[in-house]
């Protein structure tokens, strides 16, 4: 009974912590955008995902340092929050914006996603990976990273371990690229459209 009570308190504290961190990301994001705008940079180069990652890493280090990580763990359900995020992402999709890109944009997306998906599938087959892991990895690489991996994992009944492999792979690859790619694009003189794609 004592253990259940402690679990419920941990769940509430963990959820409150995630909520507080989310609010803090929004506060910092606005402040940083204003700081850059004040210096003549209209487009904030440090976008909110980067701030969220930094705050998340700091919070994780603090929780582990103070040995309170296990206590708040019931409220920090990463996979569940990612699934909620997928619903929010879909709700935010504006069909008019998609249609504005026209048939060319849709065709380009179709060719890109299909070719990357099947290339990853072929490569994973060469490495003799299990089919579920292949499907999750191919979706993650070709569509939109961790969110696609989580969505695909539910469809192909992948193991938690397989989702964790792919999530770690995407994060390890994407984290440095989030910082390096805008800098490289500017150094190479690429247009915003090309660099963004």
């Amino acid at each position, binding site marked *: 009974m004592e253990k259940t009570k402690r679990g419920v308190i941990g769940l509430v504290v963990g959820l409150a912590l995630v909520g507080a961190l989310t*609010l803090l990301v*929004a*506060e*910092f*994001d*606005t*402040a940083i955008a*204003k700081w850059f705008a004040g210096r003549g940079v209209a487009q904030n180069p440090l976008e909110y995902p980067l701030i969220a990652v930094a705050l998340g890493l700091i919070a994780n280090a603090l929780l582990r340092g103070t040995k309170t990580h296990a206590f708040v763990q019931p409220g920090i359900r990463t*996979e*569940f929050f990612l*699934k*909620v*995020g*997928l*619903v*929010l992402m879909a*709700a935010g999709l504006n069909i008019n914006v998609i249609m504005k890109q026209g048939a060319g944009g849709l065709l380009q997306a179709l060719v890109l996603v299909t070719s990357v998906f099947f290339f990853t599938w072929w490569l994973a087959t060469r490495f003799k990976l299990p089919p579920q892991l292949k499907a999750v990895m191919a979706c993650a690489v070709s569509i939109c990273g961790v969110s696609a991996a989580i969505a695909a994992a*539910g469809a192909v009944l992948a193991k938690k371990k397989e989702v964790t492999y792919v999530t770690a792979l995407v994060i390890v690859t994407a984290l440095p690229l989030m910082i390096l790619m805008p800098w490289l694009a500017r150094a190479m003189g690429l247009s915003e459209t090309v660099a963004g794609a």
Partner: protein
Amino acid sequence: MSDPRRMLPKLSEDWLSVLVGLLVVLLVALGGLAKVPWPLFGWFK
């Protein structure tokens, strides 16, 4: 008498996230209609 807990359907994490996601969408929409400021506190203004 059957156990009341068994009468409630047990939702999988996928369905629970759909429900929570839709509730958050509703909350955001209501927040927009009620003109709730974002960021909420504006600490660094």
